[in-house]
């Protein structure tokens, strides 16, 4: 008998045999003391502000003078005002770019390569693709502002391939600014999603593909019935991460467009900042903040449900 066979099964019988409420009362008291500092920090700088946000959202307050109770007016404004609705819609449009592009491209690479990226090539790939994750989003925003500038690389390329008529100041264009911002987000998230999916696919048992081929499966079938289900968890992770990044985006927009032109690229995060600190409408800003939080939760919940529970 080798080490491994004797040591691995250890954990199972012991944990199975014992009921969940292990340990003594003192253990529990001690555990509480260990949790306390983190909980205090969390309560002071997250839970308390969250409660305050909720409270402010029912007020009419300029942040300085007297506040007055405003009922649900702020929420009604958030959900009816055309500008605010457009701003929320912008965030969801960004989801298309932030999520779809990285996931689809990542899946394409993963299902084509379907093996571990070993050796030097793998290391270089990982290093390069993770660069956007390491730099500040602000830097990505600046880099791409320059890419999208009128003399930037995007226009330079278009001109080089004879599409001069397409060249424009992308981030100042009422139609193209939002997609351009979306591209920036996609660029940031692409590497992470690709690497997650490539890693995920190496965990699928290769004999499944061989069995499927013996059963007469075409490549599409392999993708549909083996790769996709096998990557469910990883896809779930990618969608979760990218959807949150899109809905709660701030840095990229702040740097690249300041929300313009008009409000074509304004997102809730930026609008909260503006309402609270430029327009002094703390109540409305807080209502929008609460709505944003709820929207994120609602958007993430089904993804978590579909990808994690069934195991």
């Amino acid at each position, binding site marked *: 008998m080798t080490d491994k066979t004797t040591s691995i099964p250890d954990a199972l019988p*012991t944990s199975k045999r014992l009921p969940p409420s292990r340990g003594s009362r003192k253990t529990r008291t001690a555990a509480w003391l*260990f949790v306390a500092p983190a909980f205090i920090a969390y309560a002071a700088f997250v839970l308390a502000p969250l409660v305050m946000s909720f409270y402010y959202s029912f007020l009419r307050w300029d942040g300085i003078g007297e506040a007055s109770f405003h009922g649900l007016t702020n929420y009604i404004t958030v959900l009816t005002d055309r500008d605010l609705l457009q701003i929320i819609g912008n965030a969801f449009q960004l989801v298309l770019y932030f999520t779809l592009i990285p996931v689809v491209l990542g899946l394409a690479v993963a299902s084509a390569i379907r093996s571990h990226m070993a050796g030097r090539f793998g290391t270089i790939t990982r290093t390069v693709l993770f660069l956007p994750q390491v730099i500040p989003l602000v830097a990505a925003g600046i880099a791409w502002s*320059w890419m999208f500038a009128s003399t930037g*690389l995007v226009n*330079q390329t278009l001109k080089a391939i004879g599409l001069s008529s397409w060249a424009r100041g992308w981030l100042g264009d009422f139609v193209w600014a939002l997609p351009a911002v979306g591209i920036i987000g996609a660029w940031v998230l692409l590497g992470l999603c690709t690497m997650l999916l490539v*890693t995920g696919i190496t965990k699928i048992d290769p004999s499944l593909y061989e069995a499927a081929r013996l059963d007469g499966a075409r490549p599409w079938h392999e993708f549909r019935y083996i790769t996709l289900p096998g990557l469910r968890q990883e896809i779930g992770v990618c969608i979760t991460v990218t959807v949150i990044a899109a809905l709660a985006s701030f840095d990229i927009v702040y740097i690249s467009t300041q929300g313009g032109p008009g409000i074509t690229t304004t997102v809730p995060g930026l609008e*909260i*900042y503006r309402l609270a600190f430029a327009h002094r409408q703390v109540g409305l800003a807080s209502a929008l*903040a*609460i709505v944003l939080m709820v929207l994120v939760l609602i958007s993430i919940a089904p993804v978590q449900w579909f990808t994690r529970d069934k195991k």
Partner: protein
Amino acid sequence: MKTATPNTLVARGLIIVLMIVTLLPFLSMLSAALAPQGTYPNGLQWPADPQWGNFARAFEVARMDQLLLSSSLIVLGVVPISVLIATMAGYGLAKLTTNKYKWLYLVFVFGLTLPFEAVITPLYYEVRALGLLNTRFAIILPLIGLYMPFSVYWMRAHFLNVPHDLTEAAQLDGATRWKEFWLVQVPLARPAIMSLTILLFLWTWNQFLLPVVLVQDPMQRTMAGALGAFQGQWGTDIPLLCAGSLLILAPTVALFLVFQRQFVAALMQGAVKG
């Protein structure tokens, strides 16, 4: 390794395209950063006479030395404490697994998806009330709290995998909780702690929203926050802006290149668990 099938060639091609797309913005910035001052350079064009001096000027204009110091102070204020209290809490929560205590864990988990924007307004008034506005503590203290959901979640996941027997063996060996934590649990948690440290370092260094709202003086901000101010001030001088941006993102990139393996592992696990 399998032999290269047409499929893997396609995949490699795709990956190489992805890598080029990833690198182009950096190259484009570099080429602009080397253009002569005051000119309006082209997207990607190696300048006839590369102006490496632009970097020196950007270093001076951006007061990089001070920025580095400020960012480092903030990281030192945030990361060690966050890692410590999150490790403690993760250990504690892993011992409180009964239904009776599940709510405590759920309260932490709830914060995982919380956008910082949702609490930034009240944070402003809270920090102002504490008299910390425009100090580094305005960034440090809230960040510690904001990082708790992920950090605690992360460390708890680790501690759940440590056999309970080790705790009991330590108890019987005469260890108090505190000693057990330091002498048995923390050494075993080193990989998880390492990854968490890397992630928190990156997130702190790159934090933008808090410095923009809570700290006016760029010299008290994080690198990312300072970069925002730098852009506001020098946004029209493309060579200088690009040189400055490259300088500002250089420290994390350099660290990343050195600890490539650890960073990649941390970022991937971080995404999966978060």
